[in-house]
């Protein structure tokens, strides 16, 4: 297969006809360039859609409460429904096998300070399961654990940006942070893909917050994830049944939409999934279209090249070139032009995407890039494309009769 002389012949022919080779490569380079940019933008679009969901596990269910809007069982409308610790236990008792993680949440706004630095942050008091629900990545120290819940310890886990704001260059683990006048020990720092707001968050054990802010067992919200083995329909059934049970428990009218709200991400993530598939299909169709246009372009020019080189091919045949060697010369020339031009297009595309990234990200395209696996795929596709592009012209060339070629002047 590897024949140094064959390659020498091909590179000589490409090199001696540089303009022609560059021009014929141009179509492919342009096709790949367009494809890469399109692919990157589509990726950005997909990332934007997915962004709303990377923050939370896609099998999340949120339970929130509000005021009743309908009178029911002798109770008036306008009653406030308050979730408590026992409601989380109730859900676990009823649906233990369907629940993967569960946590309660309390929200507070706090003013935090360390030494001379001071700022306002959101505080979430949570159970240890919250880490998995929110996809929190602890980068140093630890998260809230069960013993914190039992002992109501005064510890906090702070977001990366809180760390940057307050602790500047020093490491925060083990230091004491002042939240609304009370000292808490920092036990961990976390990152979150959900964006800057999520990283300006402070987590605290649920029970600690309950004791300090009101000495009760109230919670603002219950978050849970359902067992990932449940399929889409089972997941929807689960959240519907959960809604009914909770409405019954709090004596809320079945039709009351405000008092108890259960939001199931399964619904939304399925819609996003459909949109992502649609974008992928769109990109593949356009990409294939441009690639085919490129192949046709190369093929066209190769046919022209064969026509132009008819005489040379005739001479080669008269000197004893076999049809096979003529086919290889034309085929490999097409493959080499396609591959090199393709890579030029690919690299240009990647560079353009990189340069345009800030502008694109302003316009809601998150991280518009192509991954490295595409490069491998592209290599394969380009060689194949070159072979396809070269096949017809090569066949045509091998059929040239030397007598016809030599007469041709």
């Amino acid at each position, binding site marked *: 297969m590897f024949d140094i002389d064959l390659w020498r012949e091909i590179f000589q022919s490409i090199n001696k006809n540089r303009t022609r080779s560059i021009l014929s490569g141009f179509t492919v380079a342009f096709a790949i360039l367009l494809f890469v940019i399109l692919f990157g933008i589509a990726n950005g679009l997909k990332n934007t859609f997915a962004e709303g969901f990377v923050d939370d596990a896609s099998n999340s269910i949120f339970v929130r409460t509000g005021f009743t809007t309908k009178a029911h069982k002798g109770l008036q409308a306008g009653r406030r429904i308050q979730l408590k610790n026992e409601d989380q236990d109730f859900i676990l008792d009823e649906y233990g096998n369907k629940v993967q993680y569960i946590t309660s949440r309390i929200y507070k706004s706090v003013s935090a300070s360390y030494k001379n630095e001071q700022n306002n942050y959101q505080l979430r008091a949570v159970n240890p399961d919250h880490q998995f629900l929110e996809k929190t990545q602890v980068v140093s120290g630890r998260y809230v654990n069960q013993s914190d819940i039992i002992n109501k310890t005064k510890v906090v886990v702070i977001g990366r940006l809180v760390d940057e704001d307050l602790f500047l260059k020093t490491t925060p683990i083990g230091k004491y942070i002042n939240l609304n006048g009370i000292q808490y020990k920092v036990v961990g720092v976390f990152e979150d893909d959900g964006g800057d707001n999520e990283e300006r968050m402070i987590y605290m054990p649920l029970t600690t917050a309950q004791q300090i802010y009101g000495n009760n067992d109230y919670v603002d919200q219950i978050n849970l994830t359902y067992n990932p083995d449940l399929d889409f329909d089972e997941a929807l059934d689960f959240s519907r049944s959960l809604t009914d049970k909770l409405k019954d428990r709090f004596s809320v009218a079945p039709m009351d939409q405000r008092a108890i709200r259960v939001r199931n991400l399964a619904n939304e993530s399925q819609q996003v999934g459909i949109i992502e598939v649609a974008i992928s299909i769109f990109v593949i169709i356009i990409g294939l279209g441009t690639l085919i246009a490129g192949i046709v372009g190369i093929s066209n020019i190769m046919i022209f090249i064969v026509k132009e080189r008819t005489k040379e091919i005739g001479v080669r045949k008269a000197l004893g070139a076999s049809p096979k060697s003529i086919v290889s010369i034309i085929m490999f020339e097409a493959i080499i032009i396609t591959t090199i031009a393709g890579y030029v297009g690919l690299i240009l595309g990647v560079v353009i995407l990189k340069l345009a990234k800030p502008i694109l990200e302003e316009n809601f395209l998150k991280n518009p890039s192509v991954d490295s696996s595409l490069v491998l795929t592209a290599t394969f596709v380009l060689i194949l494309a070159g072979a396809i592009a070269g096949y017809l012209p090569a066949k045509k060339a091998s059929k040239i009769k030397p007598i016809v070629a*030599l007469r041709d002047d």
Partner: protein
Amino acid sequence: MLKISKLHKSYPIGDSSLHVLKGIDLSVDSGEMVAIMGSSGSGKSTLLNIIGMLDELDKGEYVLDNVPIVDLNEKKAAIYRNKFLGFIFQSFNLINYKNAIENVALPLYYQGFKRKERLEKALFHLSKVGLSDWAKHLPNELSGGQKQRVAIARALAADPKLLLADEPTGALDTKTSHEIMEFLQQLNDEGKTILIVTHEEDIADMCKRIVRLKDGVIMEDKFVTQVRASQYV
């Protein structure tokens, strides 16, 4: 060396066909230098193309160096051409993006010689035609006579049994023509069998035998006293 009997060839023209060669019998021995003459349309080039396996015969027999040339497919023809034949064309037919030595080395490439060997042999043949100083020059940097000498070196490179020349002096002036003929005569003196298609009487006179074609048949086939080209140079 070469034996042709009852050779027929016709070309289709629209619905009818043009009968170009109508039963040619010709045999050439090793070491001969034969001129094939005839006016245009006499079939002389067709005959040369069939001998050169660039074209196929319709009817008849063709034996080259005791090998019957039958059922030629492209691959077989390529091997025979490479092994038996060297071509010299009127328009030189050098590959314009290859320099002189690369052009000469080309048939050796198709014979499967290694690059180093190829270039050595090519340089040897170039020096034989007196162009070793021009090895790295492209064809368009050479004069007509030099181009034809490169073409001759290329035809010789593969060490063919038979040298076929189609109007080798057709594109050259008289002086250069005589130089080329002198060189071909030298090759013939060394034992090469040469077939030359020409319509110029003085070129034909420099061969040892003249075969005259008219309307697809051999009119005359005679041995002549060779006029040495060297006396004109």
